[in-house]
């Protein structure tokens, strides 16, 4: 790669920035992906944070990474990087495994002194050999170049070294022929109140870019293909922000004010952060005293007539389960967002998994059915948050939206929808004439089994709800055995009926194949890419990626029964596979599972499926 100057044309490329958690790698990565999106690339990003806020500088536990894939046909942040930027030996050591063999590793050689190597627990003074690095290493004296660039700035040394990330960004921009002007514009906006900082960063980006130019004799540059993407106005959005925005869209489309009751928890907290900012759109986001208060305040808000939501991760779902049962019993609309992370217990807070599915489907006392949907990608979080709210409001039921740490923090370019692209959400409100017809609180639409919603403050419709079993019509407390069984059936039927109000399951890939790959939730990008690769390689695979989990789309069974080979790939020990197996005992459901706190690699799916297909 490094022999001589040439320009390589690539469909897509993966770049990974790594450094100390204080080195500003997330910012450098974000700016790089935004510039790329701005010139028409598809983007997909994945930040990989340490659990510690600030581990000791230069140590292995303090390494923070940011991976971005740019180009055409980009559905994942990429399995492995073409280019890895490492600001210190610890970052290199932790991230070398994410670099393709023969890729380019750019290191700040100023930070590879003996003491730096020791902090990263290197035993020799040859770190590359010690970690068996099979890459072209480009050693750049970043720290000294930054110092030189800012020598006349009058800034102190600490502030100067903080600009190193922008030097790396400038260098990578040169490597991939990105326009640094948009990076400089971005920084001028970000540091509008600190023009000196903005100026220093701009200077350093240019220095990095020029440095690349000056050494160009020895490094190849790339031209990345752009995609034919749908015209419109785009922005870069991560899954948590998209989730928050989807709820706001649902609020606008239902005419119900939006209320969020929440409690901080990794990796879901950014939903709370975003909605807290959205007081400018009338959103009330309340940080409550604990997880239970988070959902309970939302249930109170729902009873009061708002579109109510609560956001959390797996441990929070455990704490909220009793209250979810109350929402099931009281038949109130509620959106519960579970941004899944590694478990059990505190588990792996900053890592991703799909291990909460069973908890969400069944983790409550009693027969307690509720709807479960799952978002497939960062931008799909918008659509599925909207869908979760639509189902909750139109069916008077709690709905769990499953996302995960990978799509919650990962981002993609997203076309900002026009307001008329989303349907009106129609709450099943009581009508004044119902009073004369002898309205009772548990009277319901006979077809859908959805009870009518009377908002407190409405004259004549005063009623009492509660967690005790209720008479199927009057909502008076009832311990009658037959009534209880009837209510259990009604609550189940109401949830089952949602299948009539959601889209049919789509098949992608080659629908005529013998093998069907099934996925759900945040693994979509990896599975889709694997399916494309397999079909391109003459190994036909059909692909059904589920976003509606409970109830399943009406045609799910028909699809599952149609294929000889049914394989579920998921980031757990087979929870969706078990769910489908229980519903389809005659079909042998095969499995590809991974529980490492990391997303799938496309390669793992390709290999796993190939193996299963060859076994048949």
């Amino acid at each position, binding site marked *: 790669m490094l022999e001589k100057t040439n320009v390589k044309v690539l469909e897509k490329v993966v770049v990974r920035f790594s450094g100390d958690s204080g080195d500003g790698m997330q910012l450098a990565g974000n700016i790089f992906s935004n510039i790329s999106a701005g010139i028409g690339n598809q983007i997909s990003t994945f930040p990989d944070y340490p659990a510690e806020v600030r581990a000791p500088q230069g140590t292995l536990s303090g390494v923070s990474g940011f991976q971005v894939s740019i180009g055409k046909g980009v559905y994942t942040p990429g399995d492995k990087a073409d280019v890895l930027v490492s600001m210190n030996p610890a970052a290199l050591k932790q991230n070398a495994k994410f670099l393709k063999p023969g890729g380019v590793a750019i290191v700040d050689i100023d930070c590879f002194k003996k003491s730096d190597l020791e902090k990263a627990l290197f035993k020799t003074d040859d770190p590359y050999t010690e970690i068996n690095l099979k890459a072209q290493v480009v050693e750049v004296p970043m720290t000294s170049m930054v110092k030189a660039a800012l020598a006349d700035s009058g800034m102190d040394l600490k502030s100067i070294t903080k600009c190193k990330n922008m030097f790396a960004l400038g260098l990578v921009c040169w490597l991939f022929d990105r326009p640094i002007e948009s990076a400089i514009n971005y920084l001028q906006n970000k540091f509008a109140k600190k023009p000196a900082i903005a100026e220093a960063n701009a200077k350093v980006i240019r220095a990095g870019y020029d440095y690349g130019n000056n050494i160009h004799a020895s490094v190849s540059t790339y031209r990345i293909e752009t995609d034919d993407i749908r015209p419109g106005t785009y922005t870069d959005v991560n899954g948590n922000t998209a989730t928050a925005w989807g709820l706001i869209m649902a609020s606008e489309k239902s005419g119900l004010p939006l209320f969020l009751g929440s409690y901080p928890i990794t990796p879901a907290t950014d939903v709370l952060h975003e909605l807290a900012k959205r007081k400018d759109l009338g959103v*009330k986001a309340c940080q409550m005293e604990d997880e239970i208060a988070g959902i309970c305040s939302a249930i109170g808000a729902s009873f009061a007539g708002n579109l109510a939501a609560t956001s959390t991760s797996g441990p929070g779902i455990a704490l909220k389960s009793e209250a979810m*049962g109350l929402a099931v019993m009281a038949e109130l609309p509620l959106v519960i967002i579970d941004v899944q992370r590694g478990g059990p217990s505190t588990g792996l807070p900053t890592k991703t998994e799909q291990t909460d599915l069973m908890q969400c489907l069944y983790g409550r006392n009693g027969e307690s059915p509720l709807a479960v949907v799952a978002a497939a990608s960062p931008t799909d979080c918008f659509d599925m948050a909207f869908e979760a709210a639509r189902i909750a409001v139109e069916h008077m039921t709690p709905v769990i939206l499953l996302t995960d740490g990978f799509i919650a923090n990962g981002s993609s370019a997203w076309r900002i929808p026009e307001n008329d692209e989303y349907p009106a959400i129609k709450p099943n409100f009581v009508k004044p004439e119902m009073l004369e017809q002898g309205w009772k609180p548990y009277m319901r639409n006979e077809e859908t089994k959805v009870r009518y919603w009377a908002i407190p403050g409405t004259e004549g419709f005063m009623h009492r709800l509660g967690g005790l079993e209720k008479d199927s019509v009057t909502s008076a407390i009832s311990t009658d055995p037959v009534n209880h069984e009837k209510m259990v059936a009604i609550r189940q039927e109401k949830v089952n009926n949602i299948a009539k109000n959601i889209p049919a399951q789509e098949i992608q890939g080659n629908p005529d194949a013998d093998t069907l790959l099934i996925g759900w939730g945040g693994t979509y990008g990896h599975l889709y890419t694997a399916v494309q690769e397999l079909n391109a390689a003459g190994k036909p695979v059909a692909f059904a990626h589920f976003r509606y989990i409970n109830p399943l789309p009406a045609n799910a069974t028909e699809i599952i029964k149609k294929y000889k080979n049914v394989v579920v790939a998921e980031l757990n020990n087979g929870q969706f596979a078990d769910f489908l197996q229980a519903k389809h005992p005659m079909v042998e459901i095969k499995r590809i599972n991974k529980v490492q706190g990391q997303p799938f690699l496309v390669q793992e799916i390709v290999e796993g499926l190939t193996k299963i297909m060859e076994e048949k």
Partner: protein
Amino acid sequence: MEENKQYTNADFKSDQYVRWCPGCGDHAILAVLHKAMAEVGVAPHMTAVISGIGCSSRLPYYMNTYGFHTIHGRGGAIASGFKTANPKMTVWQVCGDGDGLAIGGNHFIHEVRRNVDLNVLLLNNKIYGLTKGQYSPTSDRGFVCKSAPYGTTEDPFIPAELVFGARGTFFGRGIDVELKISQEVMVAAARHKGCSIVEMLQNCVIFNHGIHNFITDKENRADRTIHLVHGEKMIFGKDKNKGIVQDGFALKAVEIGKDGYTIDDVLVHDAHCQSNFLHQQLAMMDGHDLPLAIGVIRDVEAPVYNEEVEKQVAEVKAKKGFTCLRDMILSGDTWEVK
């Protein structure tokens, strides 16, 4: 709060059969609440009553208002969300000493701290009734019951202390046998803007009968309680000849005209004093050396959570001027694809 005098007690009564045990103090408290609501005059459809779990938490079923009988301990969190979401409603919360101070203790202190505009009735019978007789966080040390057959080995909460510890803006106390004073406290709680805590001493006839007898028995009640009224002298006793005076850093009960104490030495109650120092001293009086205080002990103004939320929403909306979500997103970093 829209007040309107057209309502009677009957307007607030539901058609449900009241299932508390005969002789339970809750019956009297329910009747007083109906009266207090009629006196305050907020329409039944503008009123919500929210509870947790326990005997006292059955109360919403007996109200012809919007009502929600929720889950154990969570009434405070649910009521807080309800009020914040729909601030036009007048919200009452009913809890017991177990529901409110044990399993729901966290929500209790936080609703007080936030000063959400709720009227909270804390029915304190110092026992778990619905689960048939276990000690509660207000049971006295050494209390013998099914879950402490040799007596408890822990000290109780005094609800008022929690309220003052959380910088509560309203604390009042009533007794299930002092109906007029209880009504006065509930009405004041309803009119107070912010989180009003009303502790109602209540007798459980089945599992803790007579627990408040030291205070409530007719013989001694006048000497062991004092009805505090803002702006009035703190006088009590059968013969209205006793008063509360300040004695150094403490309070003291004295007989007027004895030991050199005159009526001028007797404190005048100031429920509106911002400092809660004396309010706390008054609320801690337990009927032994000093009479137990009933009536409105503290009633001060402070920023109200739900009002501050509304204010902030209005301010930020006006400042940013977005008409919809799309409008807001378009104001950020975007790019065009043609």
